[in-house]
């Protein structure tokens, strides 16, 4: 009898525990669901708005499902899809090529700086570090790019600025410096030259750091629009983010112009067309991210244990 009561009590306690943990999990899930909805709903609103008829959108406002389904906005854009396709091409090209070159350059610079036996280590470090604290500012930058390098309106203008980011070089240097010097000595005893050591020993060991810096650089290239704002006039070379910026700000400029009260205006992109543009520009990137996010996250955390 006594045993029975004990068992029952035990079972009750277990039930209670289960209930508690259920409530705990439930509330966490609810919180997470609300959070995800907060992230998702704006996206859905944009997609829905892009499929809504222009006038209906103004009259009825934004709905989660289009109040009146229309593909007008997309027809408008796909009437001349070259701009967005080209912009995708430019952005993908700069991201791939730019990240590859930038990583090689930064590794090649960071490695010697990390070696204590490198003669010019101190002056070169200072030279690199100095630019992090002091820089010429926008106008000298512009003069250098346009009047000395003559890269305006070329794809180099988009590539050059992120080739060497001093902060990333410092991170890489620190990582290289932490590699045991015995490894390098051992390789040298085995008859490896400096370049061999760099390629076969240092680089493979620094993979986590390289992955992190590579990811950051790729994001820099993907999201960059200011470089294009300063140096690119040729619409064929507009990167994706800049194209979006231009579409938005052109619409604003048109409105400004109308307040000045001057004569007739060019076509202002409609609300729905702007939404459709945003969907087309972010959509593929978002899907890409879904598939690759585990690699990206691993890339970020890989560098963390050091």
């Amino acid at each position: 009898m006594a045993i029975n009561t004990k068992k029952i009590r035990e079972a009750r306690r277990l039930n209670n525990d289960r209930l508690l943990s259920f409530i705990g999990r439930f509330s966490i899930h609810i919180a997470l669901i609300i959070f995800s909805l907060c992230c998702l709903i704006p996206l859905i609103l944009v997609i829905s708005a892009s499929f809504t008829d222009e006038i209906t959108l103004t009259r009825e406002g934004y709905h989660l499902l289009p109040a009146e389904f229309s593909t007008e906005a997309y027809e408008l854009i796909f009437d001349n899809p070259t701009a967005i396709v080209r912009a995708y091409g430019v952005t993908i090209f700069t991201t791939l090529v730019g990240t590859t070159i930038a990583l090689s350059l930064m590794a090649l610079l960071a490695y010697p700086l990390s070696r204590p036996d490198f003669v010019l280590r101190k002056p070169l470090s200072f030279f690199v570090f100095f630019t992090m604290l002091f820089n010429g500012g926008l106008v000298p930058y512009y003069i250098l790019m346009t009047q000395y390098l003559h890269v305006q309106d070329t794809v180099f203008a988009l590539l050059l600025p992120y080739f060497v980011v001093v902060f990333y070089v410092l991170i890489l240097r620190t990582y290289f410096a932490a590699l045991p010097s015995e490894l390098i000595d051992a390789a040298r005893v085995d008859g490896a030259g400096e370049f061999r050591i760099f390629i076969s020993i240092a680089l493979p060991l620094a993979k986590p750091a390289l992955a992190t810096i590579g990811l950051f650089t790729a994001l820099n290239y993907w999201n960059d629009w200011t470089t294009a704002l300063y140096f690119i006039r040729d619409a064929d070379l507009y990167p994706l983010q800049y194209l979006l910026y231009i579409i938005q700000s052109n619409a604003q400029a048109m409105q400004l112009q109308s307040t000045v009260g001057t004569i007739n205006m060019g076509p202002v992109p409609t609300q729905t067309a702007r939404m459709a543009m945003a969907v087309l520009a972010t959509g593929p990137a978002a899907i890409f991210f879904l598939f690759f996010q585990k690699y990206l996250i691993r890339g970020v955390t890989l560098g963390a244990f050091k």
Partner: protein
Amino acid sequence: MNTVKKTLFRGLIVLVALCAFGISAIAQDDLPQLIYIYPGTQQPDHDLVQAAVNEYLAEAIGATIEMRPIDWGAYNDQIGLINASGEQYDIAFTAPWINNYYSNITEEYFIPLEDLLQEHAPEYWASMTPETWEAARVGGHIYGAINQQIFVKPFGPYISTEVLEAIGMVDEFNAITSYSDLDPIMEAVQAYADEDEILTHATYNLAPLLNAENWNYDPIGNGLVVDTSNPVPEVLIFSETDAYREAAQMIRDWYEAGYAPSDIALWAEQDAAWQAEQYAVRVSDLVKPGGDAEIQARWGIATTSVAIAEPVLTTAGVIATLNGVSYTSEHPELAVQFLGLLNTDPVFYNLFSKGIEGTHWEWADEESLLIQPANGAGSFGDTGYAPNTDWMFGNVFNSYYTDPTQVGAWTATAELNRNARPSPILGFTFDGSEVETEIASVSAVLQEYGDPLGSGLVDVDEGITTLNQALQDAGIETIRAEVQRQIDEWLASNN
């Protein structure tokens, strides 16, 4: 099939043009080249038009030009960098609202034009009255070539004709002479809107009623105005005038009567709501010849409008669109000749702003200067060249009409400009460098206490008292005195 033909045809034109360009390029190579930078989107047929422009220009003034449009959204940044870095160019579009005319002058990016214009573009110089040119004068020199367009700002209400006829008040509307006359009409429109399914309010944005030009004052900025009917320019604080009180009271009354949406955040969407026909009256907009036709063309809504404000020639109105010549220009005299040609030669001007005859446009009726998209294109936007910014390049009164209802509008506008009463401070520009601190505080006060009055959110008497007190505390009196001093000095030096 048709499109294939069209493409082939267009390709052929390009080829011919390229050949022609190739032949003439030998001759054009030796000619000096000008660079003209202006805001605008790149046109598909840009190169084609540029070749034609150069051919014309080579013969007319012995120079060629590179037309360099920069996207609207990038124009301010790029032209700023080009100026600061000393990159060579000749002409740039400038105005107080984009590529700021006054900062360009302070930074000495533009060269004085008055002598060059008189010497190298006498016809252009003579096409406007001396008072008009005075408006562009800053610190003794004229740095901008003025494009003729509508200089005056006769503000007034626009109303949807359909609604106006439905409420049966056509005659009453056409007879109004002041904004208070609009009151019964607004009431009727609102009653109509309450019954109507689509129309939600009589109007949307009430704030434009507070524009000083509506009440025949010339705004100098920072809440200061000059009464244009007073020949002796006396600087007043706008919110202390009776006109301000009347306007604020009207806004408050109409807002409380529910003529405008109570959520003023919606006011920013006034254009979208107008297109969706959610309201019927734009209380205060620029009423100009061809204005109704313009709204009809843009939104497909027929409107009726009446000008209430008197047409007054103000500095801001005259210099709304200018072209400046860069300090880096190697051929300023050619640049001025080019501007002269653009402003006085209709053939060249329309080639520049509307494209090539037969390729981009063709005559619909040559006698009345009416054109239509070439080769059966649905709109000018489909022809391959339609920057749609005639007012940026030169005298818009020389541009061909693109819509039958527009015919005659330029002549009427030119007339309006000519007959306008000049503001007593036409040509005066205020230099605020001595009172920068006060200007910053005053503009913050105007935003904090002035904007609620403009949207009818606060009681008028209380609101105006608070606003005026806050303006005094912010030091508006110092600015007023400084403006008055500068105006007196300017008057003395002019006579």
